[in-house]
């Protein structure tokens, strides 16, 4: 059985037929070939697949593509379409908030969600907000500094 879905990703609308069981992250990576969104765990623990779904940060491995029908998704490819990094990306670059970069797209969207709710978070609030995102390069210290720098720059 195939379900028709219409999902807008990074401002472009995609009409596709999908299996009901297809996860949003597989829709993005396999169907649309947008591989910037990562799969780190398969168990909804690592947060590498975090994207914006109608402006809300969600783990795209916990969401079916069919659930995103009619919605707008923003992936990491949509944050700097003209090559101009957004302030959160700039802050992660400047503060060395990444090593291998695998967790980075998810970290950036989790940061976005945090700064939307709290424009000046404490280090503890940052750590709490990012607890659903894992970094296996053990880069948390610099990730916290990156988020603080992004907040100081007025990033959302």
């Amino acid at each position, binding site marked *: 059985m195939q379900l028709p879905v219409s999902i807008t990703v990074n401002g472009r609308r995609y009409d596709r037929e999908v299996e009901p069981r297809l996860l949003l992250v*597989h829709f993005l990576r396999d169907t649309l070939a947008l591989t910037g969104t990562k799969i780190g765990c398969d168990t909804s623990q690592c947060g590498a697949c975090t994207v914006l779904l109608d402006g809300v940060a969600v783990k795209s491995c916990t969401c079916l593509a069919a659930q995103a029908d009619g919605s707008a998704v923003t992936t990491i490819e949509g*944050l700097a379409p003209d*090559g101009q990094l957004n302030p959160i990306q700039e802050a992660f*670059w*400047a503060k060395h908030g990444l090593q291998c970069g695998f967790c980075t797209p998810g970290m950036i969207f989790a940061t976005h969600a945090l700064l939307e709710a709290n424009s000046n978070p404490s280090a503890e609030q940052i750590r709490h907000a990012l607890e659903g995102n894992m970094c296996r390069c053990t880069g948390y210290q610099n990730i916290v500094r990156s988020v603080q720098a992004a907040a100081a720059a007025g990033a959302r």
Partner: protein
Amino acid sequence: MATTVAAPARVFGSGIKRREDPRLLTGTARYTADITLPGQLYAAILRSPHGHARIRKIDTAAAKAAPGVMAAFTGADTEGVLQTIPCAWLVPNSDLKIGSVPAACEERCSGMSVTPSRSSWRNRPSRPLMQLT
């Protein structure tokens, strides 16, 4: 483009932006799992659930018969083809000792099935089809 990095005037004491970061920050970096090639296959590896045990038999019949599975390999297929895989490296002239080699290594047991699934998550069913006793 705003994402290029100029060479710093001095290295020590400078905050230097990494040249590789722009592609990592924008989702354009390619990791192994992001690569798709024509006819690409995916491998699934079955490991022993026991850290130290004797493997009596690996039955790959059901895995080989499964739709989409191209091959299933076990240690028997590597007999005379591969050398024993070392499980550790001992410093020469040291008195370090390694006990008996773990069963998985000793028996070269790692069963592996390869399927032509377009996406790695679709080949999951082939793995439980291998019986390891």
